[in-house]
Each structure stands twice: as structure tokens, then as C-alpha cells.
């Protein structure tokens, strides 16, 4: 009797635009048989078959049936899905089939760059990737955690890796939310070598969580000779995390921001999220204080009603008044509203100009002390004023 091994990957059904479904059956003999049904047969049928054959050669698969239903998947997606099918037939396999790295994605980030908006994209939904950067979020988060079902975690790892390599982020900061530790530590090898800028650590409860990620990242960076800095944004989503907020915020010099996730937090303290947000006032203030004390950015939770732009605007203004510097977005249409709401007001701009002018004047005169009228101005005040003016330019 001939022994066969069978596995599948991807999603079946026409509604899965820009994705594909692949069934792989490995035989002992009979050569390669490809059965391709593709929406783009006339345009890319030939190149899809060639890709599948190249990958079979790479993985030394000589005898197999490959059944593909393709709904217009981009090459990086096809590769991730077929690699997954192969990996699922041979779990011991450690070889990665990497698509070419898009040279537009070689840019670096800075610890103190603006992080007003960060757009969450479910890590296993490829149709959302190619255009996300066009909406100009400050950051794009490829999510491996809550938006990916437990059975598809391996699929999302490969897809996120290929997305980091192939899809143009158009200048947005390149972020990945890994899974809650310890599972999240396994995610790191799929992202660290591929120019990830910021790693979001969910459900962070102690400095130790950050340190574990930091250590694993250090090892992986060394292994794959990654030189650029990778920053961390711990997300606090529990009562314990809130109590340890400062310890978490100051755990690593590579922490760039501290975020709060209110869905889980309110559940943890046994209450409901309300629009007024009394139930989370303490937690959010803790985040702001801990982040500021550690010299990093406090970042607010997401606003989940994508149709309520007025509500979003109010929520951002309120977050800004508490001291937050960023907001999570779950839909591209939220980005513009978030940026507008974080934009400094006319009064803020005028005040900032006065301060910066006075500072420059004092510097020119060689004065050690800056003052406006009789009021002395400290260095942090000048820095904040400079930030306000930078933000003005950003909104132009």
C-alpha cells in the first residue's frame, strides 16, 4: 500500500478575496500534479504554477498532488499558504521559503517618533495588507494575537513574516502584536529578522514579561545579524499589570510606549466599559503616570465603534486631556479623525511658538535661563513646545 500524507492551508470560499486555499497530498510516486482554479488564471496562472513548482524543488517534494483555489492571492500570500501546507505535512521542517525583501521597507524607526495612530490588522487576513499604509497611520500593527484563531496561529506567523518582507508600509512604523507569553516568544523568530520596528507585548503583567521578550529578541538579532533597534510597547490589560505599570514601563531601555487595553482590563476588575469611562479612570491615569515617569509615550486603547466618528473624536480629545499621546485604530477611516483630534489647538500652537522663540533668543544671547516675562521656563517645557510644533508640521 502506498502511504500518503495530506494537509491543507488557507481559506476556502469566494468571500476570501486576495487569499487562497491549498490542499497538498504527498505521494511516494507519480510526480507533481497541480490542479489550479484561479480567478487570475489568464493573467498569472503560469506564474502561480511556476511558483508552486519552485517551492516543491526547494522543499524536495517530487511526488504530490497540489489542489489550489485562488481568489486573487498576491505572491507573498500564496507562498505563505503553500509553505504552511508543506509544514503541516512535515512538522519537523525548519526551512523557510522567503520572498524577496521589498526595498521600500528598509527604513528604520526612532524611539520618540509620533505614535498618534496605530492601525490593527488581523494577521491572517491578507486582503487588508496592501493598502493599509495608504491611509497614513503612524503605525501598522500586524496582529498575531486576539484576531487570529488558535488553530491558525501557524498560518498567521508565516503570513505576517511574508507581509513584513513584501508589502509596502509606505513609511508607517512596522509593528507586530505577538501572542501572550509564553506563546508570544515563539512568534519572535518570524518577525525579528524582517525589520519589525515595534513589538507589542499583550497582557503584560510584570517587568519579567518585557525582559523575556528583550532577551529572546537579543538572541535572535544576533543569530540573524539584525542591526537596527527593535522597540517594545507593553500593553497592560489587567489589574495586576496596572499596579506594576511603572516597573513594566521602565523594564527595558527599548520600551518606547506603554499602552492600555480596556476590554480585558474592565473584565478583569469585574465591570463593563462605559462611554464616560469612570471605571477605567484610575487605570488610564496610572498608565499615563508610569509612562511619563519612565520617559516613554502613554498610548490609549482602541475605539471600537467604527461608525461613530464623533464619538471617536471626543474619546481622543478626552485621552489627550489625560495625557495620552496615541490611540489604537481598528479601521482606516479612524486615522484621520485621530490625527485631527491630537492636533494642537490654536492656543497651544501660539504658546509653543512663544516658548520656542524665547528659548532660541536666550540661546543666541548665551543665556542659561529661559524666561517669558517674569516666568522661568524649564527644559521639559521647551521640549514639549517643540513637540507641539512638530505635530503641527505633521498635520499639514
Amino acid at each position: 500500500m502506498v502511504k500518503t500524507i495530506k494537509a491543507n492551508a488557507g481559506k476556502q470560499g469566494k468571500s476570501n478575496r486576495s487569499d487562497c486555499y491549498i490542499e497538498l497530498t504527498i505521494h511516494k510516486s507519480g510526480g507533481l500534479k497541480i490542479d489550479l482554479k484561479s480567478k487570475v488564471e489568464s493573467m498569472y496562472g503560469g506564474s502561480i504554477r511556476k511558483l508552486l513548482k519552485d517551492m516543491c524543488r526547494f522543499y524536495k517534494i517530487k511526488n504530490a498532488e497540489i489542489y489550489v483555489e485562488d481568489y486573487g492571492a498576491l505572491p507573498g500570500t500564496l507562498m505563505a499558504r503553500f509553505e504552511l501546507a508543506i509544514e503541516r505535512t512535515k512538522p519537523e521542517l525548519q526551512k523557510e521559503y522567503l520572498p524577496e525583501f521589498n526595498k521600500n521597507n528598509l527604513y528604520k524607526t526612532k524611539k520618540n517618533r509620533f505614535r498618534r495612530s496605530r492601525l490593527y490588522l488581523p494577521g491572517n487576513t491578507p486582503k487588508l495588507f496592501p493598502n493599509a499604509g495608504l491611509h497614513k497611520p503612524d503605525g501598522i500593527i500586524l496582529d498575531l494575537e486576539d484576531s487570529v484563531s488558535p488553530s491558525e496561529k501557524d498560518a498567521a506567523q508565516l503570513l505576517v513574516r511574508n507581509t513584513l518582507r513584501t508589502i509596502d508600509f509606505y513609511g508607517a512604523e512596522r509593528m507586530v502584536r505577538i501572542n501572550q507569553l509564553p506563546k508570544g516568544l515563539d512568534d519572535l523568530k518570524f518577525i525579528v529578522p524582517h525589520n519589525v520596528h515595534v513589538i507589542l507585548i499583550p497582557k503584560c503583567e510584570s517587568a519579567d514579561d518585557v525582559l523575556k521578550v528583550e532577551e529572546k529578541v537579543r538572541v535572535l538579532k544576533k543569530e540573524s545579524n539584525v542591526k537596527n533597534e527593535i522597540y517594545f510597547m507593553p500593553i497592560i490589560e489587567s489589574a495586576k499589570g496596572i499596579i506594576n505599570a511603572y516597573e513594566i514601563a521602565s523594564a527595558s531601555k527599548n520600551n518606547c510606549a506603554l499602552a492600555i487595553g480596556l476590554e480585558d482590563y474592565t473584565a478583569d476588575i469585574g465591570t463593563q466599559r462605559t462611554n464616560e469611562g469612570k471605571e477605567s479612570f484610575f487605570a488610564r491615569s496610572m498608565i499615563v503616570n508610569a509612562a511619563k515617569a519612565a520617559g516613554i509615550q502613554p498610548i490609549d486603547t482602541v475605539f471600537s465603534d467604527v461608525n461613530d466618528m464623533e464619538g471617536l473624536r471626543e474619546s481622543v480629545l478626552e485621552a489627550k486631556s489625560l495625557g495620552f499621546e496615541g490611540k489604537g485604530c481598528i479601521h482606516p477611516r479612524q486615522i484621520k479623525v485621530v490625527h485631527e483630534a491630537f492636533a494642537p489647538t490654536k492656543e497651544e500652537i501660539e504658546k509653543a511658538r512663544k516658548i520656542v522663540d524665547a528659548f532660541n533668543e536666550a540661546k543666541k544671547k548665551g543665556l542659561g535661563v529661559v524666561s517669558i516675562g517674569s516666568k522661568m521656563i524649564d527644559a521639559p517645557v521647551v521640549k514639549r513646545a517643540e513637540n507641539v510644533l512638530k505635530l503641527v508640521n505633521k498635520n499639514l
Partner: protein
Amino acid sequence: MKMIKNAAGRLVPEVVNGKKQIPYKGVGKYKPSGKKHGPPIRSCADYPEDGNKVVKNLREALKKAGLKNGMTISTHHHLRNGDALTNLLFDTIKSMGIKNIRWFPSASFPVHEHLINYLEDGTIHHIEGSMNGPLGRYASEGKMKGLGVLRSHGGRWQAIQDGEVHIDIAVIAAPTADPFGNATGDRGPTACGLLGFALADSIYADNVIVATDNLVPFPCTPWQIQGNNVDYVVEVDSLGDPGKIVSGTTQVTKSPDRLLIAEYIAQFFEDAGIMKDGFSFQAGAGGINLAFAVYLRERMKEKGVKARFIRGGSTKYLVEMLEEGLTDYILDGQTFDLEGVRSMRENPNHINTSPFTSYNYHGKGNFASLVDAAVLGATEVDINFNANVVTHSDGYLLHGIGGWQNALFGKTTILAIPSFRDRIPVIVDEVTTLVGPGELIDVIVTERGIAINPRRKDLIKATKGSTLPIRPIEDIYEEVNSICGGKPAKPKLNKKKVIAVIKWVDGTIIDSVYQVRK
């Protein structure tokens, strides 16, 4: 089939369905002479004195109109995908044992898939008219006996008026009519708005049948079709499904990428100086176009700018602009939702127009060229700004031309298109089918940037310093190819078999559509 190269460099047949053709000669180059077509003279002596032209049923009307094998029968698409009359009409023709009809619709919809049976059994010989969906697919596979002929709305008027297409019997679906034949589309249980697409047929056809499911006593007023042109009136149970004729409300797209395109276009209107007091624009009912109108409205309000007229397809969004005083008039070509129908019925500044006033190229001017800017769509655009609206990149004929070619004559033509759909590039090196020449297409707006035709130096100058992502079209083309994984292969076509021709607005042939190899 003998093929000749036209002025656009495209190979087109010399003869189509037995008739000698004129190849496309360039924009504004072909000017025919002679007289318009005239319908036969009739006498009141042959029509009932009491004005009651109602006959028993459709069969009776067709019989009285002298239906014979090989005749040309016309229908119209104002009932859109809710149309039940056309299918009923051909069921009747089939039951009368008639063969080889040339069907001359102003457009077809997926609901007409039923008629494939009659293409198969020889009741219908071929279709001259826009073929949407299943009929286009059928023709693309080379199964139709004659050649399809696709015309724009204005081109259809031109062909009828010039005598290029002689209509034996026109069957007009009328949501409300009187026994004399006066008819309107703005009221009745199957109200659709206006009947402009049937107007030429009512004037030039040998025989005109009005079919209605809402017969009112004389006079049906105001009428859109004049009873004096009508031979017979038929009552039917229902013209179709109102829910599919007009939508309750048309919806703005929710796709963030399409909304981004719409926003870019609205900003382009402002930055390029198109949006100024007394301006005019045309926008259809596609998702992007509707959203564009919504964004433009916000900008007009903010800047206190008012338009002189807007050209529909009207929707509630345009109606709101009319009612808010943001435009003096809507000049409407078709009505897409119930609000549009209501407004047309009630508001004297919501004007019903026809392909004659708006689009006919063989007239003493038309409205389309008076419009400051038209926002249109396309299935493909190439790096020379040539565009395609009828075939997909796999070669299949799936859409009609509509008023698209005619609207290209607006002062600025803007195509709103995604740069690719799934993995299908929309910006290509050469269009599969040439429907609109690049010289008439000024601006391409995609989610990845805006390309201005280098011919429009004025627009390039006006938008200098704009924050819009304006880039060369080749740039967007390269980017799309790199996203999709290289240049797409060309469709597999049987170049020996033409299945349809595309007419330009002046009746010349601009391109051929070929059979798709399976």
C-alpha cells in the same frame, strides 16, 4: 472576415452583420452628410378616433405591428435588473414561431440571462446593445450567431437617427400610461424615473408599442413619451420587481480604499479650481462616485460654492444637494433610487433629459461637452490614458458602455479606479479593448496616487503645490505590477473570431472584441 486598421491602430471588421462599416478616424474627424432617417407617414384615419389604442395583449400588438422573421425589436433598460417585460416579450415572440430577431436593447442586465435560450433556438439572431454579465459571457465564448454591436447611449440615438439601425417595432415599458400612449416613468408601482432611453425609438421606429402596468385615463401628464408616436397600448400585470428597478436607498461605499479615492477626487476639484461658483459636474451611481459627491458637498458648503447644474444618474445624495441649494439644477439621465424618482416628479429643477439632449454626437451640440468635470469608472486604463469599460483583463465582455463615451467630452474627465482589484491590475500597458481614446481622458485617480494626462498642462500647473499624491501614470503602473507579481499575461483570445464591435460616438468602429479561448 476582412479586418482593417483604424486611426487608433486597432483592427476592426470591414463588414458587420452584412453591413459595410466605417473604421474610427479620430475624435471629431468623421462628419457624415445627408438626411436623418424618417419614420413612415401615418394618418389619423387609421387610428381610433376616441384615442383608445389599447389592444388585448402583447401578442395581439405584435401581430398588428406586423411582426416577421428577421425584424429588429428594441427595448430599454430603465427597469434595470427588475425588468420582467423583455423576457415576457421574447416568450411571446417565441410562442408566435418567429425567428432571427435582431434585439436592439439600450442595455441588458443579468435578469436577461433567460434570453440565452432564444439565442440558442434561433428566436434571437444577435444582440446590438450593451451586454452585461451572462449575455456578455455567452457572446465572449463565440456562441452568438451574429456580431454584437456595442454603442454608447448617445451612439444609440445617433445610430437610430442616422438610419444606421432601422427599428421595426419598439416596445416601451411605461410605469404609467394612458390609452392614447402618453407615458411616464416618474410614477406608478414600477416607477423608474425617466424614459429617455426609449425616446429615440418612439420617434423613429416603424411601430411603437407601449406596455404598462398602470393604465390611467387620458391624459397621462406630464408625459415623457408622446402618445402621438404610439401605435398600440398593452396592459400587463407587472413590468417587474420594483426593488430591483430602483433601490430604496443607494449606499455610499464602505471600503476605506474607495473612500480614499473619492476624497482625493473631491480635493482635486478644489485644488485644480474646478469647484467654483457656477460650475457643473457629472457623477454616476457607483460606490466611489456617490462618496465623491458626499465629500464634494462638504467642501462646497465649507467654501460657500454653488453649482449651476449637476448631471445625474441621480440619487438621494444629489437630490439633497439640490434641496440644500448647492446646485440650481439636476439634469438627470436616469434615476437610481426612490428619492431621485420623487424629486424628479416633484421638483421642477430636477430636469429629465434624454440621450438626444445630453449625448447625441450628430446634433447641434450636446450637454455632455458643457460639463466642467465628469467622474467616471473603467475596467482598465493604460499608460497612454486609453480606457476600457466593456471587457475585463481576461478578455470577457461583461459590461456595456452606457453614457461613458459621451461623458468623455466634458471639459475634464476623471476616472476613479482602484489601481488593482485583488490581483488584477487595472492600470496596464495596453487596454484589452479600446473604448475611450486617451486624448479625452485627463485624470486617473487611484488609491495609490493621481495621474494627470501630460496633455493637460493647465491641470498640472493648477495643482502644483497641492498635497495630493500626484505622480506619473507609469509610476503607478510599475508599482501595481510589482505588487501583483510582475506584468500580467495577455488574455488568450481567438484573434480570428470577432464576437462584437465597439462603436465610437459617431458610428465608426473603434475596436473589436474577440472570442475568449477556454
